[in-house]
């Protein structure tokens, strides 16, 4: 119906966005009937999302006309932002930003480099940036989930960790079960994605390729490759992030400093020696 009133291009896109916006707002208004107030949150999120995505689209338009190395800068900026967002979710964990950033750079960065080198990801910016951004975003989510779970596990088991330390255990030994739990917890959504692939949902890249006229079988296989890359990047990120945060949970004098309320850090209990 829309194509009768709008020509293809930006005006058609904006009209499509406007209709989806109305649909999303209708949900928020409907929720009011049950005293669930989502209006403000929904409106802010929708407007913010629209502005962000249009801004990114505009920037990409400029970037795609520039030299190839610009994609490296774009991906690096995305990783930096992802580190910040993941760290916000892991608030209270000492050095969460650097740990998240290092985890994402290691996880997503390694997979992007390897896959571009082997030719799985096209090195053209039009392919590298969108696929790279998917790997970074998924690594960010996995890293944040793993961090959050690690904090919860350590805080819930601080008594056992103290008991193990008091018996002369190395800090790494005392949190080993929680490192494992955290990596697994972070990866659950990625495993579910792999399990439901093609059965419950047809993911974005595959849908986009089919819409743009690609062979559906090739689109499906490439989609699998992307999901597998996401799993690899997220897995590496979860492992790296949790192993890195493991050291920050303890002071140099091997005292547990990641505790409920995290009061210890403010007390100068970063392991410095009293004089």
């Amino acid at each position, binding site marked *: 119906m829309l194509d009768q009133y709008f020509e293809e291009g930006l005006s058609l896109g904006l009209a499509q966005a406007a209709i989806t916006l109305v649909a999303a707002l209708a949900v928020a208004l409907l929720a009011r009937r049950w005293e669930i107030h989502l209006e403000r949150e929904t409106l802010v999120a929708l407007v913010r999302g629209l502005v962000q995505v249009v801004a990114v689209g505009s920037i990409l338009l400029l970037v795609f006309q520039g030299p190839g190395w610009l994609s490296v800068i774009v991906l690096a900026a995305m990783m930096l932002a992802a580190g910040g967002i993941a760290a916000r979710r892991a608030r209270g964990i000492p050095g969460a930003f650097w740990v998240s950033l290092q985890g994402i750079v290691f996880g997503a960065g390694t997979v992007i480099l390897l896959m571009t080198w082997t030719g799985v990801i096209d090195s053209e910016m039009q392919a590298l940036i969108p696929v790279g951004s998917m790997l970074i975003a998924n690594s960010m989510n996995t890293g944040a989930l793993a961090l959050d779970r690690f904090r919860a596990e350590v805080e819930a088991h601080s*008594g*056992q960790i*103290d*008991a*193990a*330390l*008091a*018996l*002369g*255990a*190395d800090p790494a*030994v005392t949190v080993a079960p929680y490192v494992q739990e955290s990596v697994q917890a972070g990866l659950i959504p990625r495993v579910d994605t792999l399990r439901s692939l093609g059965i419950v949902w047809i993911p974005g890249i595959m849908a986009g390729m089919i819409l743009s006229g690609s062979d559906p079988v090739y689109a499906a296989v490439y989609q699998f490759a992307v999901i597998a890359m996401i799993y690899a990047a997220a897995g590496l990120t979860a492992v790296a992030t949790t192993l890195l945060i493991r050291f920050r949970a303890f*002071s140099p*004098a*091997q*005292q*547990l400093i990641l505790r409920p309320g995290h*009061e*210890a850090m*403010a*007390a*100068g*209990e970063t*392991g*410095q*020696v*009293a004089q």
Partner: protein
Amino acid sequence: MTGENDSRASEPILRTKDLGRAVNGTRLVEGVTIAIERRQVVAIVGPSGAGKSSLLRLLNRLDEPTSGTVYLDGHDYRELEPQALRRRVGMVMQTANLFPGTVERNIRFGPRQRGEELAEADVEELLARVELAGYARRDVSRLSGGEAQRVSIARTLANSPEVLLLDEPTSSLDAQTEREVEDLMCEIVHGQGLTCLIVTHDIAQAHRLASHALLLQDGRLVGFGPVEEVLDA
């Protein structure tokens, strides 16, 4: 060599100098200077919030002092490797905090950290000392509170500590079990001539277990000496 050994033997096994700890500007322990002789059993007493457990956690460096230090056998404990220090200064906490799995796994945990594997006979002997002979294969989730605390004591003894720190080990137990565990501690501490510091809120227990008492108030040391002198004053 003999002279050095003699001077070491005369040195208190544990000495604190101006020991203190503050958290977010709140002083938990302040300026505690004491000397604990070998085989001394010291009860740390004082009202709730006096800093008893905080002091104990400073003694094996589970928490970091913000002032002063502790000397173990004449050596500043900041120069010792934390893991080695904590094996020498063992600690039993208020709750057993057992690791999931069998009793045996818990008993073997400490020695395993330094690459030592206890013989089955050693595990049985440790369990017999806490009156839990035959419990090695039992899952810790099936133990009563008193049994769990006994395993916790045996687990600490498996490291053969020179100093034993007990942080209200009977406070979470019912009255009868409390007395049983207390008798057991008394037997172990006095029977083996261990140096021991026990936090307790129970003055009668301090009389029954300890030769000396250390009285804390608002984190400060207000009395240290023979139990009768400090607690009956």
